[in-house]
């Protein structure tokens, strides 16, 4: 198994030196962050209300303007008029765009799924034709995969493509639904089945004859973005606009979604920091019972936990961006093989991408919910931005693959790598199961400090392997029918990636701190790892109980007990400490 290979986090402990953490940002990264922030605060944040009111033409105008400072073409190679930024810089931008409210979704849709299919899977001619415009704001991109009858089940698309007589065009017919940026997009990346069979990607120009749009959807949140259906009525698409290869639309669609997924995780981290900043300020200024509510323990507990989860998610997304950067950075984006190679590289981290999507969106939903709560009744009133944060957050668990389908994918993609021989997962599951029978194979965890946290994380990995092995063994033929079990296994895997990424980051901080655990990150690590262990223990129990009985179950449970033995830390005090730190700093600050 290669170092840092996709899925390897489940089998080995990350070497902090191999992992990108936010503390590794260069001066250039910081300048990029500041440049994005200055533009968003100067040009977009002041007009969020107008965006929310769908002021005609405003969103596309802002998108185009943002191209002038480089917010539209970060991921587009320099050869095609973009900037070819590293994946960290582009994640930094993604983390900043929530400062612009609904602008975030419009921007990320354009830079991610609206442009990347051409970046990774377009041919040279398509790249030359579309990428410069997508980078400089002349063209706004959009991604049209979903159909009324094909949501999660995207391959069930009913849209058809038929080659015209003479072979110059494909004639597309069908309807795409819920398409972000549709109202002002210049191009649509869409999918249709050639002759009703071969699922294939296409690039369609906005002004194609036969293309029309449905009414704007009246949405719960992200009300400032355009969401409309795309109606294709005998639309003639030149054969040159077929994307990648006939019948290979799924390769394009799913790999691009992988990138979209971890980017979404990054946007959620940015949005969480924003909600935290508002909440910290509010809690410090709102006086009840003669005290700022920030003085109250139940409020500190919430703020502490909001910071902890934000920090963990941040550790996870930057690690993932670093992994993908390392894997893709040497691919020559002008070569005809770039598409295949990129796809392979991205697919390697499909599990990690899904993890970031699920974790990021659920972290944000938690954070905005508590943000509203801390604002009390005012949080429910539109005068306060948290009311919007709360509504805007909800979509993240639905689009870019619902969290349910992503949970199924987390395990499925790992197993796929294992079956291809790219990840020694099955061997590891067997090893964990045989260790279970000999008590000596399971050593007891150290009682405190980073060693305890590391050993618990190792134990969590063993638990993950044990439950996966137990379920696999009990359901060799009908595994896919066991969704509840897969969901819980994935929850455990998500927590493992979270703990592993968190500890790698804190260890890297320790190295720079003369080996000492830095106070606040240390508090976060202690609280989080112990909490995660409690959650993992519960899921594992439920899983074992669903697949075994009697003595087998008893053996499994006693192994579980040994693996989850630890001295609890004073999470109450530590969470308060974390809260006090950000209350003092006035914003999300973890140092």
């Amino acid at each position: 198994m290669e170092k840092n290979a996709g899925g390897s986090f489940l089998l080995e402990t990350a070497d902090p030196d191999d992992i990108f953490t936010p503390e590794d940002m260069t001066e250039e990264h910081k300048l990029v962050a500041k440049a994005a922030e200055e533009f968003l605060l100067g040009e977009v944040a002041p007009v969020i209300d107008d965006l929310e009111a769908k002021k005609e033409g405003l969103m596309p105008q802002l998108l185009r303007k943002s191209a002038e400072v480089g917010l539209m073409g970060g991921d587009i190679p320099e050869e095609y008029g973009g900037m070819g930024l590293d994946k960290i810089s582009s994640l930094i931008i993604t983390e900043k765009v929530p400062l612009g409210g609904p602008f975030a979704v419009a921007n990320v849709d354009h830079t991610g799924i609206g442009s990347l299919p051409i970046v990774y899977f377009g041919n040279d001619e398509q790249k030359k034709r579309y990428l410069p415009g997508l980078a400089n704001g002349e063209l706004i991109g959009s991604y049209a995969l979903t159909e009324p009858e094909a949501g999660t089940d995207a391959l069930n698309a009913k849209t058809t493509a038929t080659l015209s007589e003479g072979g110059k065009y494909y004639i597309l017919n069908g309807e795409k639904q819920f398409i972000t940026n549709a109202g002002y997009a210049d191009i649509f990346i869409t999918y249709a089945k050639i002759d009703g069979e071969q699922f294939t990607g296409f690039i369609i120009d906005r002004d194609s004859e036969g293309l029309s749009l449905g009414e704007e959807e009246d949405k719960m949140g992200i009300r400032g973005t355009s969401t409309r259906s795309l109606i294709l009525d005998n639309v003639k698409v030149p054969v040159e606009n077929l994307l990648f290869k006939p019948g290979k639309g799924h390769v394009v669609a799913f790999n691009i979604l992988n990138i979209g997924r971890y980017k979404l995780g990054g946007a959620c981290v940015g949005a969480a920091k924003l909600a935290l900043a508002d909440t910290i300020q509010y809690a410090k200024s709102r006086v009840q019972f003669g005290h700022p509510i920030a003085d109250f323990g139940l409020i500190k507990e919430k703020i502490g936990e909001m910071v902890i989860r934000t920090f963990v998610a941040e550790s996870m997304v930057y690690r993932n961006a670093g992994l993908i950067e390392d894997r893709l950075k040497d691919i020559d984006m002008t070569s005809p093989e770039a598409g295949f190679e990129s796809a392979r590289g991205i697919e390697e981290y499909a599990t990690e991408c899904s993890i970031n999507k699920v974790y990021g969106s659920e972290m944000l939903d938690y954070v905005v919910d508590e943000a509203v709560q801390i604002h009390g009744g005012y949080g429910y009133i539109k005068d306060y931005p948290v009311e919007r944060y709360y509504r805007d957050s909800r979509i993240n668990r639905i689009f870019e693959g619902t969290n349910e389908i992503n949970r199924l994918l987390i395990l499925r993609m790992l197993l796929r790598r294992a079956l291809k021989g790219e990840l020694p997962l099955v061997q590891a599951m067997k090893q964990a199961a045989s260790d279970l029978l000999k008590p000596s194979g399971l050593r007891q965890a150290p009682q405190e400090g980073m060693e305890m946290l590391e050993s618990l994380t190792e134990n969590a990995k063993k638990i993950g392997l044990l439950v996966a092995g137990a379920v696999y063994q009990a359901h060799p033929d009908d595994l896919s029918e066991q969704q509840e079990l897969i969901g819980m296994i994935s929850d455990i895997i998500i927590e493992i990636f979270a703990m592993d990424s968190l500890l790698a980051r804190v260890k890297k901080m320790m190295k720079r701190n003369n080996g000492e655990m830095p106070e606040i990150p240390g508090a976060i690590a202690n609280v989080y790892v112990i909490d995660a262990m409690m959650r993992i223990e519960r899921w594992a129990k439920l899983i074992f109980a669903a697949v075994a009985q009697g003595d087998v179950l008893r053996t499994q449970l006693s192994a579980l007990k040994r693996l989850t033995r630890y001295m609890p830390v004073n999470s109450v005090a530590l969470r308060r400490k974390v809260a006090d730190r950000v209350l003092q700093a006035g914003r999300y600050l973890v140092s």
Partner: protein
Amino acid sequence: MDIIVCIKRVPETAEADLVIDGTKKAIETDDLVYSINEWDNYAVEAAIQLKEAEGGTITVISVGPEENNEVLRRALAMGADEAIRLTDPAFEGSDAYAMAKVLAAAIKDMPHDLILTGVQADDDGFGATGVALAQMLGLPYAALVTDIKKEGDTLTVHRELEGGLEEVDTLKLPALLTIQTGINEPRYVSIMGIRRVAKKEIAAKGAADLGLSENDVGLNGSMSQIEELFFPPVGEGAEIIEGTMDEKAETLVKILKERGGIA
């Protein structure tokens, strides 16, 4: 035209909860976000606009530790050509006078037709560095500049005065101007710009390189020093205006007019 712009990296203090540190002479800065001094950002933009119209070069100079490279590189990304950082432990504790000596020592041997500084710095508010620098270099200067026109070797500048007055002056180049906010609309830094200058060397010079001794700079070389920093106690005399919304507005306007807040 060779333009030199002096820029400073300052903590953003307007909305932060400040804490005075143990020396009682400074604030705790660990938690603060740093940016280019607001006035200096306008000065950089003014320089770029002049260069765009007249040609020439722009060099930005900042005194401070390595972190100051961030504001220097930012100015390069906006359109400056060169950046120099002046740094030495001996510079610490310099007042505006000593700081001007540091800057003058660096600038005197560089080609300069025009030197721009901000009117003042966000953090220490001396409002004197630019003017002192002009004196040391023997240059004509104008402070609080809100408009610049150049014709031949003559500058016509507008200065913003109290009471809404505006003054027009002419100066012969070389000269120094301290730039007021609002003189222009500083451009956004583009990520393309950042990429363009990412690899650019930023030279660092210390006291010895500038021919300065320990007695010229820092506290030794200063004419004033900070004695104490404190938050004044919250005063009495706040007036709560009562009434309906319209009545409140009416009373407020009346008070503001009476006290000269609005015309």
